């Protein structure tokens, strides 16, 4: 598939990193993403298959890191599974063969834009953007929230490390919202 040159969600050849004061916003294009939902009544089968395949299936509101698969909960018996894009561009196929008929699996890689936020403390930024009680939730917390009208997934990796998944088509708007808030705060 050499002939097609991908564009990032921001319409560039290469991912964008912007800094504002202590804050770094890094677009991540190297993450493959798929949804995994247990088929009705097949949760035990899915759990067993996932365990065998090394696919974490964390509890509600949680993210669990692993190699190569990490995952976060998005709905009852439903997760988003992350893996390195370079090795797992065909993440949906790979998960299907690993998890079999116990799960419904859908490629989600290009449905989202991923931004990694880094700063010594992200709480002052996030309180201007979303209704998440960021200082209180633990590292490994994952939730769906809204930023400037956009539904996003927020994963807290630490007080100063957050991954956001926002709608890919609104990547520009989301980045603008992040930068605007950053100028307000930092």
């Amino acid at each position, binding site marked *: 598939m050499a002939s097609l040159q991908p*564009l990032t969600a921001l319409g560039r050849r290469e991912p964008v990193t912007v800094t504002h004061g202590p804050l770094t916003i890094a677009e991540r294009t190297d993450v493959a993403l798929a949804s995994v*939902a247990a088929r009705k009544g097949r949760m035990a089968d899915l759990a067993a298959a996932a365990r065998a395949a090394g696919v974490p299936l964390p509890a509600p509101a949680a993210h669990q890191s692993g190699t190569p698969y990490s995952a976060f909960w998005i709905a009852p018996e439903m997760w988003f599974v992350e893996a390195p894009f370079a090795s797992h561009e065909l993440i949906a196929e790979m998960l299907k063969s690993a998890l079999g008929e116990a799960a419904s699996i859908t490629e989600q890689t290009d449905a989202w834009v991923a931004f990694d936020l880094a700063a010594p403390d992200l709480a002052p930024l996030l309180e201007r953007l979303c209704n998440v009680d960021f200082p209180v939730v633990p590292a490994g917390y994952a939730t769906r929230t809204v930023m400037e009208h956009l539904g996003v997934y927020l994963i807290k990796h630490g007080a100063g490390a957050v991954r956001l998944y926002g709608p890919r*088509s*609104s990547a*520009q708007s989301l980045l603008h919202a992040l930068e605007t808030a950053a100028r307000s705060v930092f």
Partner: protein
Amino acid sequence: MTQPNRIAGGQIDRTRTLRFTFDGIPYTGHPGDTLASALLANGVRLMGRSFKYHRPRGPISAGSEEPNALVELRSGARQEPNTRATVAELFDGLEAKSQNRWPSLRLDAMAINDRLNAFFTAGFYYKTFMWPRSFWERVYEPMIRRAAGLGSVSREEDPDAYDKGFLHCDLLVIGAGPAGLMAALTAGRAGRRVILADEDFRMGGRLNAETFAIGNTAGADWAAATVAELASMPHVRLMTRTAVIGAFDHGIYGAVERVSDHLAVPPPGKPRQILWRIYSQRAILAGGATERPIAFANNDRPGIMLAGALRAYANRWGVAAGQRVAVFTNNDDGLRTAADLKAKGVEVVAVIDSRKGEVVIDTRGRLGLKAITIRDGAGRTRSFSVEALGVSGGWNPNVNIHSHHRARPVWDAAIAAFVPGPEGPPGLLVAGAAAGVLSTHGALRTGCDAARAALDLTGAAPDLPQAEDAPVRISPLWHVDHGRGRAWIDQQNDVTVKDVKLAKQENFTSVEHLKRYTTLGMATDQGKTGNVIGLAIMAELTGRSIPETGTTIYRPPYTPVALGTLAGRSRGKEFKPYRLTPSHYWAQEQGAVFVEVGMWLRTQWIPKAGETEWRQSVDREVLATRKSVGICDVTTLGKIDIQGTDAGAFLDRVYANTFSTLPVGKCRYGLMLREDGIVFDDGTTARLGEHEYVMTTTTANAVAVFRHLEFCRQCLWPEMDVQLISTTEAWAQFSVAGPNARKLLEKVVDQDISDAAFPYMAAGNITVCGGLRARLFRISFSGELAYEIAVPTRYGDALLREMLARGAEFDPIVYGTEALGVMRVEKGHVAGGELNGQSTALNMGLGRMVSKKKDSIGMVLSQREGLTDPEGYRLVGVKPVDRNGKLTAGSHFLEKGAAPVAANDLGWLTSKVYSPHLGHDIALGYLKAGDRRIGQRMRAVNLLSGQDTEVEILSPHMFDPEGERLRG
């Protein structure tokens, strides 16, 4: 420049001098001043003109309850009207202007209204502007509108930014006076997360305005030390300049933080204000109390103010509002003003205590108080020359926020005021003066108790510092009935005792009627000083008690909020986020014209050199597509991945037609009904595997359909094995249409897509350009041989460029939504104009798609008599009889010769385009019994545009009705 009324003391920084102007005249003040305190220090008492009578007015308060001292702050685009001088923080270079006067504050021509006051009583408008009727809108309304309103707006765009934000805490403490500080301290020392918010720029509340000691220190010093201790606690957030404006549902409070209002201009990138939504487990209202005046003749002159404000100016700001002052009170607290002012060296010439039978009966001084006349207990009158008069009619607890959920406050006769009742927003406790506990000790005690109760703190209560605990001794006096002079109740709206009497006389005795009839309690101050006197006087007049008379409903916001604050960042181009299609950057390079479709920016058409008018571009795009091949970005259509062993059965229930029988590798057009039988949405759904379907929806309904399916899955049929997820953005999808569509696609698709291998309505996973996973659907919206091809979104731009490059020999064009619309109307495909939420499958000519062999949402109700009327609307095609005739969407069908009235209406044109193939306008429409009128002539009449066009009714399939092209 001297400040003649500046006296010793106060919490201002005299080491720095700030320059400012009022009506162009330069003055000086100090950090810590408000505009009002600085003006008073400079001997300026006259700060505004009243709303109706243009009476000269000065501040009566030292806080946010101020009705009078409303000024325009700043200039140019930042000019803001109706700013209360009593809360406007002084900064260097501040520019303030008086308002509601012409030509000047001292000489206001509109003050003629005051002379004509006999006419301008309550109900003046209703009684005066009655006739002639023809004057209502043309004369009276413009005239009243010109006269109404205070201040002026710049009409320029607000250059400042406003943020919104979200905060969370265990305990929100509203107000940082003694009660609030004690509550925050109690909770903070217990390790709880606390937000302490105060609208003032200095915490301490009345402690800053009083001379009381707490323990061994001055109250203000205790406040400062407490604030310092709280500031050292990482789990306590101190928010000065932050007004909590309302109690909303579920422990959510709104608050406005004035981040930059104390600066000339916000720092670059920083907001002027932030609208916070505070999520609190519990909250304590410690908002203090507001003093109320007593109504007596001419009690509105500049220099007459609330007694508590008079001593606040002296104690907190080192300002004597006048060199010779008097105090008029009905309670002990008023006496404190006299004592404090004396201690400051101000000459107190009289203390008039109504409890001894003494009252003020009149005042003099055109632009500011010069003298008062009093009547003593023996009925003797005397006059005193004074520059300021402090008036205390008692204190009203600030119950507002506690009443935001409609809780009615209850009357407490002991303090002659309303206090919060037992009901109120869940989780909100009240402490201190807001609860009617008016002593400092009481404030500390109730603040501590409220925090302990709110947070279920156990263990012994802490020892409270010593503080004054004087009882409230008040003998209510609402107004002094003497002489003919007007006695003001609500100074902002110029409501007098006489107006209340008139309201009573005309039977507007309900407190809500009293408000509307007299305007008592309206506008920026919401009657914080005037309401209770007004209703107390109404109670006197009607012989009812004050609690029987009651209060009006308290509503947010507690203090005025700028509209920009409510808008936040959602302004102009940032009103909403945009969604960009995968071909956006390519289209931008081509100079495409974009159209907003919901949040999407879609290519509407792409002008080529020499094209001066949009129709030229659209016609070219249509003709080129039908001649060879055109490509359209259809990524915006909703795509929903539906998997599970019951996926087919699920689709059978949500679609009116059947999908469980659809073979793998095929797609089918589906019609989705609402429960009431009306068409909800349409689109094609493909079966990609035994248990895997992908549904497409219209762009507009993508979210609504997904939500509907989730409702069906989770709530209606939770037993079904169905999993859903949106994949709209995951795939870049292009329609490739036209006689050469297949030939073009063969240049990029790796598999055989001949008609035999990939027949009409085939669908499946393929690869393109040497192995990239992709999806291909042989479906057509344009009526041409057409496909939709999808690749992972990141490759969408490249695929488009590749198709254009590799297929160059076919002269492919990219078409926009306008050309798309032309081609679908030519083919009679329904879209937005026909999917109008009122139309059935039968109306659309798709009645047979509603399968009776199975149950599906809307099937039963679509069979209702009213929806199956053979005389009902049917979709038809329309063309003008004269090829040059013009059609307009929205025109109505009428029989020839029928009058254009609703009774003769036979339907309407839903969508209209110009067909470059047919060479004339065509339209779709809903026409009564339209299926039996094919070939008939009638009229399309548009009363708005004045069109009356003879039209011929056609089958909706106006182009290639046999569908030969799309199967080619």
